[in-house]
């Protein structure tokens, strides 16, 4: 979910921005430093506001002014156990990849997809595998036809790689592992207009 976090940090305003009103210059510097970055408290999606600005000293040899700033940011911060609504992005033999638009590193590995299921080549997309859940006599394809709810099982923060291969996937500083194998989870169409289940099933 999203959280409002208060932070204190040292901000450098470059000489080129010193003619701007102070709050505007500081906000610009904060956006450059924090927007779309993963911090220990989450992924920063917006600067909320500045609470206080102190300093403005120019250090020897530096043309920029340095300020101590207290400010608040809006972060996206998933919690283990939290149920989140997402959309299908792609799938392969390892499992599903879901997206929130602003954050695209949510993975549902095969063991967290309800069983029985099967993985087969996607007839509509040569490069993809698709997952199909079998429930009774019905089969449900997992695709982008509706919203998918997942529960956060784990969040990891891989270390920044020191070397990258030419064709390596873009680095993901935060990776969420989710499950769709539980009541109310998975594509929402699985739960809409649910007929009551008789007692001797399941």
């Amino acid at each position, binding site marked *: *979910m*999203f*959280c*409002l*976090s*208060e*932070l*204190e*940090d040292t901000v450098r305003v470059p000489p080129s921005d010193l003619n701007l009103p102070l709050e505007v210059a500081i906000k610009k510097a904060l*956006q450059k*430093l*924090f*927007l*779309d*970055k*993963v*911090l*220990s*408290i989450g*992924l920063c*999606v*917006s600067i*909320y506001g500045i609470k206080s600005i102190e300093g403005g000293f120019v250090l020897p040899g530096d043309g920029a002014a340095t300020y101590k700033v*207290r400010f608040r940011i*809006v*972060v*996206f*911060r998933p*919690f283990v*156990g*939290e*149920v*989140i*609504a997402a959309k299908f992005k792609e799938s392969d033999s390892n499992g599903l990849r879901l997206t*929130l*638009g*602003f954050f695209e590193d949510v993975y549902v590995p095969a063991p967290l997809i309800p069983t029985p299921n099967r993985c087969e080549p996607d007839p509509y997309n040569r490069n993809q595998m698709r997952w199909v859940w079998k429930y009774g006599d019905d089969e449900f394809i997992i695709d982008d036809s509706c919203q998918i*709810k997942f529960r956060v099982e784990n969040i990891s*923060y891989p270390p*920044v790689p020191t070397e990258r291969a030419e064709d390596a996937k873009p*680095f993901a*500083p935060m990776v969420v592992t989710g499950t769709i194998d*539980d*009541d*109310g989870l998975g594509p929402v169409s699985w739960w809409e207009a649910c007929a009551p289940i008789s007692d001797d099933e399941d």
Partner: protein
Amino acid sequence: VRIRFPSLVHSAMSGEEEENAAELKIGDEFLKAKCLMNCEVSLILEHKYEQLQQVSEDPMNQVSQVFEKSLQYVKRFSRYKNPDAVRQVREILSRHQLTEFELCVLGNLCPETAEEAVAMVPSLKTKGRAHSDEAIEKMLNDLSLVKRFE
């Protein structure tokens, strides 16, 4: 991509809140941050977007991809659109001895029955907490009365 660790400032939280968070085993950092529902974030980001529009002719140049996509997400996954409704939702949920986390999950997912609510937020039924199915149904009923569009 850079990862920064500025110092976190401790904000004052009541003793009761700390106890509940411990039960949920969410961790200390949760205590220092205020959780927001998607509908609240939607109001915040829309307001910021409007401010930018007033300042420049092409606001999307200034607004980064992550801001735009976050706004898209919270607009899509918010049931309540106008500020009064959003305020009412938080008021109603605040009356029911929920932690900030539980309040936001319920406000985001809008379960229709007590059973759904407990499936989304199992901690509602943690031993020692007084959330009967009747109490949960009453809360969901109050929520359903909030006018979504005015």
